């Protein structure tokens, strides 16, 4: 993933604690980041089993270490058309339990400096803004941080009901 690699910045004089580690994921042309502290595991090329009558953001079920994991489709959540074929899953841990985040492809682990972080631009779609935790300016692209707590299916379904 050349763009992501190009965006990798390690400031040698910056203290290690100040750097943010994240996993980059790709959705169509867009690049997103998930803080690695929330990631339990990455499951490659999965085909989740659809669940009839489930809320639209549910990407289906996958078998994960003896349990049945509910996945959230990032495409559905951001109003993008569904993608055919296998997708990658980030297994995330949030306060409400574990769930899967369905993305087109998982990139790599990046380290970024807080100096490059910008808060959410105000012109973002109101409905999606809650999922984002600002953006990092990489060398030749923007990486939008996702807030795993906001992606928890329980929270999404509560938000939808409200």
């Amino acid at each position, binding site marked *: 993933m050349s763009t992501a690699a190009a965006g990798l910045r390690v400031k040698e004089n910056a203290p290690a604690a100040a750097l943010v580690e994240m996993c980059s994921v790709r959705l169509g042309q867009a690049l997103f980041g998930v803080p690695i502290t929330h990631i339990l595991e990455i499951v490659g090329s999965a085909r989740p*089993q*659809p*669940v*009839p*009558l*489930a*809320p639209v953001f*549910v990407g289906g*079920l*996958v*078998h994960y270490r*003896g*349990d*049945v*994991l*509910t996945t959230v489709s990032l495409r559905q959540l951001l109003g993008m058309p569904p993608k055919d074929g296998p997708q990658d899953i980030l297994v995330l841990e949030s306060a*409400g*339990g574990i*769930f899967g985040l369905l993305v087109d492809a998982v990139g790599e682990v990046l380290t970024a400096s807080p100096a490059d972080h910008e808060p959410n631009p105000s012109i973002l779609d109101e409905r999606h803004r809650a999922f984002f935790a600002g953006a990092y300016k990489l060398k030749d692209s923007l990486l939008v941080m996702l807030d795993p707590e906001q992606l928890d*299916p*329980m929270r*999404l*379904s509560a938000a939808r009901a409200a």
Partner: protein
Amino acid sequence: MDELTREFLIESQEGLDRMERCLTDLEERPKDAGLIAEIFRSVHTIKGTTGFLGFKRLEKLAHAGENLLGQLREGTLTANRSIITGLLQLLDGLRSILKTIEAESNEGVGEDAALISRLEQLQLPVKGRAKRLAHARVGATSTPILPARPALAQPPALDPAPPPAEPVQAEPVQTATPAPVEAEGDPTRTRVQGTAAESTLRVDVTLLNRMMNLVGELVLTRNQVLQATSADPRMTLLSRRLDMVTADLRESVMKARMQPVSNIFSKIPRIVRDLSQTLGRRVRLQVEGQDTELDKSLLEAIKDPLTHAVRNSLDHGIEPPDVRMAAGKDPEGTLKLRAAQEGSHVIIEVYDDGAGISVEKIRQKAVERGLITAQRASRQSERELLQLIFVPGFSTAASVTNVSGRGVGMDVVRTNVEKIGGKVEIDSRVGKGTTLRMRIPLTLAIIPALIVRSLNQSFALPQGALSELVHIPPRQAAAAIEWIENAPLYRLRGKLLPLVFLDRLLMPGGDHKMAAERDSFIAVLDADGRRFGLVVDGLADPEEIVVKPLSAVLKTIGFFSGATVLGNAELALILDPGSIALKAGVSLREDDTVRVNEDEGDAGAAAALEYLLVEAAGRQAAVPLADVLRIEQLPLSRIEYIGYRPVLNFEGQLLPVEDSGGVLAAAEGDPQTQTIVVVCRAGDRHVGIAVSHVLDVAAGGDLFEAGTAQRTGGVTLLKNRVTGVVDLGAVAELPAGEQVQPEQSLIGETVA
């Protein structure tokens, strides 16, 4: 809470459970030193440890009990009813303090003084009492200003205990325990316990749950391995070995979670004792099959329904002694608890020889409450009407007592039992008694299910709710499924069955193919007393599935009770027939398969004995439908031989297979050929019958021999053809060994 306190709590609770059992036994055998010693030990241990842990309140109470028990042990006092009542109160007191400790880590504040003084009063043996009274009198004479006051104050406080010398009155509770542990006499008992303690181990339940989960995983992996390797003959041996080891391992882990039903049965004598005193009944309790084992979580789940059933039996079932006498019955009623394992289920029965339930009363009440129309009520069978007592809000009790009769009860019993995949039935005869039967699956985590297809997806349908399957070929679909407005119905043997299309249900507004274009299958389901047909696109094999919980978001959909991984590694959602019926609007009222008027004649015939019509090697034969348990299609390789008797390893049990039709023999040599085995009940045994086709289900007509006009045995009139009935009883028993007779054909010739 520290480790020491936790251990103390567990030990004390076990001790108190033992004490409770012993106390009810003590009422029967008041002089049994072994029982008294056992009770004494329980209380003494608690007292000893509490002193050490600093639970003063508990110590004080246990101490008062110990003093009383000490006198019983020395024989200066004989147990009578009021002493036992006092000791039971002590037990309750100790339990409630233990509960507080468990919840709040301290003893809490409570007043035990009343109980302690009661225990002290009970302690005074006759002589001591007399002596003290004498003293008081002496004192009174010497101080004439205060005449005999303290002495007079004493007796009322002492009473209501009858003098212990008095022979113990009729024992209201009797436990018939065939369990070997109940060996009389103390020395043997302690020895047994000693060795048991050495060879047993306390294991955390969460660890057992984890093991069960892992075994579930292994079962799934095994299923996948078996499917993947079925084509490769080199793998056959290995995968069969894997299959066996997995099955054994699963059984062992399941066994580890098993507990004898005596764990919950042991609470019953106390309930019976207390209730029969409140209600003025005389009841003899009999317990059978105490050592039958059941999964721990299931045991917990049936505790309440069982208690409910027992309360009901005492309140509504067994009559007061005078009423019983008047009816010419033994004034002492019998309450019988029975547990037994039947295949993969445990049957728990609560039987009483009381007044029974009047079907007429139920009919009236049901019509009155509008649960059923008078017209329909008059047509329902007694058995069907009896099941109405499980409908919420139904009670035939003339008055509401504080024991039962509020109409919450039997529906709770049913809901609780069905929640764990069990079934409840009731049988009753007016004047003779009532039997409540609960059928509980052995385990929750792994259930047999039929895999069905719809929306190009697999779904698992629990076998427990499934009563039969109907295949509708495409060209018959239009005629077979009838509509009343928007409600699809199917005529199942003359009765209208409401249908639910799974695809329409799960994808409302979707573009669904008309039923005429494809095969359809109707799974006839029975859930929570609602009967309906679920229409699916296809059927796959039955499988033993491991139930995995769904996340909270998906639970709210309501139609799915969980998910599972199938043998082909596909995920399948587990359908919940109860909530499907509810949401699809199949109500209890409509469900009861509205009978069509013009079909009355046909329906009448349906009441006659029904037969499964099968074909074996070109001949037709009939098997009584009531005896058919299931029909299995399996590869010929699954049939194994003991000597030359074909047998089938069926769910871990050996099933003799009858092949007098020669189906197996004809197919021999090609292990991949699919063969059909009809699994039947023959008395207590299960037998399989190898057939080439299953043709139909039809009602049989009686045939009479010409001339003698005697009913002929062994044949029946099916679809106007004389058909031989398979004699299930004649299938030779296993192991037959050398004694196997050359069999005669059990399948009779069909005379067209």
